[in-house]
């Protein structure tokens, strides 16, 4: 119902619903990057570090 639109005062405590929505968007933005996995440059770097490690010991 249109009449149900409530006027939020600035600084008012956020409703649980809004908090949940914000949390969802935050995780979606974050997971967009997480789901890209490990870019090749980092896998290569670890391998390279591993090799030089073995060379030293």
């Amino acid at each position, binding site marked *: 119902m249109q009449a149900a639109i409530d006027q939020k005062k*600035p600084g008012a405590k956020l409703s649980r619903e809004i*908090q949940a929505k914000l949390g969802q968007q*935050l995780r979606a*933005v974050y*997971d*967009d*990057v*997480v789901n890209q996995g490990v870019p090749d440059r980092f896998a290569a770097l670890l391998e390279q570090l591993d090799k030089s490690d073995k060379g030293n010991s």
Partner: protein
Amino acid sequence: MDPAVRQAVLNAIPSLRAFAISLCGNVDRADDLVQETMLRALANIHSFQPGTNMSAWLFTILRNHFRSEYRKRRREVEDTDGSYAESLKSHPEQQGHVEFNEFREALAKLPPDQREALILVGASGFSYEEAANICGCAVGTIKSRVNRARTRLAELMSIDNVDEFGPDHTTRAVLAGGDR
């Protein structure tokens, strides 16, 4: 390198990148930060306490490194708060789904302290205690930063009403903004 350490570092990389991007707003810069973090971590691996959370340890190194770099840069060039938002705009395609751009812009406008607290607790999955350790502050400080971040985000996205919020709202804004 201990295979367990290697695996733990590998496992942490995706989340470290997401955190780094949220700190500096630029994918290339973030990847450099992650690489520098890996090098620092492995050079100081003796100071890592086995049995503690490797991921939290790596986040701490990344966060401290970013802070010291950021301070240095601030001295060199006048780095306004707008630079983060600007760098976001320069690589929108690298950041993922466009429907979240409105949210990303709002996130970019948060003060850095609030943004990092919100990300650590709300997205990286750290407890308030872990986030406090990573940021080197009190648990209560993290809690209040997270609360302020949420309130500010809601204001920035001008949410008066839950129905206005979310992909539908963004889609309407996009449709209204560009005709094609």
